[in-house]
């Protein structure tokens, strides 16, 4: 009896999904190679590759858990693996074994063109309709009209400072870049080639004559200038960070007092009492806009789709965005955050605020800012330059 009931409900869900896809079908899903549906109830295991704070299962903080409710509701088992840089995410995805991934813009395209991902049939993700329009169909999640995932949220790489040690509170990146910085020897920087873009963002306002308009589209002169700035910064740096737990420990020990950070790191540090501040300085900042994507080789397609729908649902998206400290992707999440001003303080729907946040992208030889008279430095060269710089 029980069996027939659950089978009936499965058929009902399948029919519902079919109906849904029938209603809003864009028509070309069959050609894009995306899963046609329906999303069934096959139990399975999905290995989730996520930024820290994106798929919390209670192991960081027992009160912070939106993975377990998903497992209870769907019967899918979830294993979470976190990573520290986009480069690490790309490498892990390429090595295989992960079903879904939260990828920033500098990882997503590499994964799509590396054929590690499958297109996503958004009709099978009912919560997608509530995603902010300015996050839909963007270059980092959609290629030639084919969608590769659902947006998770976005934020800026903030300047974090220890309140008791850095006075007055900084409003400019100059404290981490200028050789006469009073914080010399207690600065940190992000240990990835993409950090070169942070130097470019600073140069955009301090050396306008270089003509940088997009920190990911640097011609050789602009790139050299950014590398010079990084070399100038090196003596100030105590440690480069790639592992956020080590960062937290270093700030607690006082060996690092300022540097680029994520809001979630500041939130962890401020868990008991406010010890650090985090601002988006006046020069603007690099940032991220993240997308949940599905591996081409997943064996748990049902669970993968359910995960995407779950993570972008208003309630989960509110939890995750609030915990990480970023603007949620789902417009309905704003009503469900514990702090009612969360979306306001993270500027979730303010186009103005995001105008000087430069989302991580993968630099290519064809300049991303549209210039055609010069060649830009592609990411592989960024990586080489970064490796050489770090070991010089």
């Amino acid at each position, binding site marked *: 009896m029980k069996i027939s009931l659950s089978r009936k409900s499965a058929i009902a869900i399948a029919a519902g999904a079919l109906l849904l896809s029938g209603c809003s079908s864009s028509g070309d899903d069959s050609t894009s190679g995306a899963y046609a549906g329906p999303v069934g109830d096959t139990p399975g295991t999905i290995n989730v590759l996520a930024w820290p704070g994106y798929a919390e299962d209670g192991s960081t903080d027992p009160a912070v858990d939106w993975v377990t409710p998903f497992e209870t509701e769907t019967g899918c088992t979830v294993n979470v693996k976190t990573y520290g840089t986009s480069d690490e995410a790309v490498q892990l995805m390429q090595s295989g074994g992960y079903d879904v991934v939260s990828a920033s813009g500098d990882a997503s395209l590499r994964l799509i063109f590396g054929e590690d991902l499958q297109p996503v049939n958004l009709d099978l993700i009912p919560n997608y309709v509530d995603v902010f329009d300015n996050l839909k169909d963007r270059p980092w999640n959609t290629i030639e009209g084919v969608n590769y995932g659902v947006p998770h949220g976005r934020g800026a790489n903030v300047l974090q400072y220890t309140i008791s040690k850095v006075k007055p509170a900084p409003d400019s990146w100059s404290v981490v870049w200028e050789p006469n910085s009073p914080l010399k020897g207690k600065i940190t920087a992000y240990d990835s080639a993409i950090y070169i873009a942070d130097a470019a963002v600073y140069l955009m306002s301090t050396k306008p004559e270089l003509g940088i308009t997009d920190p990911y589209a640097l011609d050789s002169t602009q790139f050299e200038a950014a590398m010079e700035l990084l070399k100038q910064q090196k003596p100030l740096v105590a440690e480069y960070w790639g592992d956020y737990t080590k960062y937290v420990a270093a700030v607690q020990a006082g*060996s690092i007092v300022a540097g680029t950070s994520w809001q979630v790191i500041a939130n962890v540090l401020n868990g008991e009492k406010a010890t650090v501040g985090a601002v988006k300085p006046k020069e603007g900042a690099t940032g991220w806009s993240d997308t949940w994507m599905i591996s081409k080789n997943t064996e748990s397609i049902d669970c993968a789709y359910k995960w995407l729908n779950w993570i972008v649902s208003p309630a989960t998206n509110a939890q995750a965005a609030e915990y990480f400290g970023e603007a949620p992707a789902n417009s309905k999440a704003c009503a469900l955050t514990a702090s009612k001003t969360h979306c306001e303080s993270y500027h979730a729907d303010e186009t103005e605020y995001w105008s000087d946040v430069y989302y991580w992208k993968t630099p290519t030889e064809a300049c991303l800012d549209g210039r055609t008279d010069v060649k830009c430095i592609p*990411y*592989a060269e960024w990586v080489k330059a970064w*490796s050489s710089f*770090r*070991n010089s």
Partner: protein
Amino acid sequence: MSLIESTQRYFHAHVRARIAVLLSAPVAWLGVLYIGSLAALFITSIWKIDTFTSKVVREFTLSNFIDVLTDKAYFNVTVRTVGVAIAVTIICAIIAIPMAFFIARVAKPQSRPVLIALVITPLWASYLVKIYAWRTMMAPDSGFLNWLISPLGLSSPGFGMVAVIIGLSYLWLPYMVLPIYAGMEKLPDSIIDASADLGAKPGRTFLKVILPLTWPAIIAGSLFTFSLSLGDYITVQILGGTFQMLGNVVYQNFALNLPFAAAVALIPVIVMIIYLASVRKTGALDNL
């Protein structure tokens, strides 16, 4: 006749089959896992990558080696790494020789097992725990070391090359003590007695008799400390601040440029081959 019995009979009758079966596991280990992975490393280093997706493309190129050899940063990092490995080896030897001498020749025979056990106790704790403990101690301003030496008007060197050398010396010390202890214990008493009978003072006996005779054992210990230091990157990450060694170059590049990382990874292999070849004549390899 049961299967077991028939198998036994077969192997009893066929000596070659017996040897083949007995050796298959070690040969598989050495040949496939060890030599095989080295070969894979070498082959990977002559491949290209797709510069956009970072995927390995199986086309021949020497550009990885050219990059390694022409960029001064990698020459410098090699020199730094070898320098750190030599420093760690010398520090370990300076500490280990008197320790091993005391345990092998001065301490009562019945207390030797206890002393040896004490030497290897640090190996029972996790590598990471020990290094994080050193991180706490070496922290600038707030660390234990800083507190200890600040009355002398000094301050902790903080994270960097010095911290890495101290951390690695601490980690690998037991690997130096044990072979030297074994070497000194083997020395016949009669040689030392003869030296004394011929009028040599203890210091002279130590320098002219004991040290030359235990030299192969010291070299054997240095093989451990040198090679372990050469390849380490975790200690460097935790204690090094912005300081980097060859292992870190490999770690930084393996995700984005595996062939280049493989080319860099061959440097410590080459350094080790040179080192092994140069110490072969000392007889150290018989002391391992």
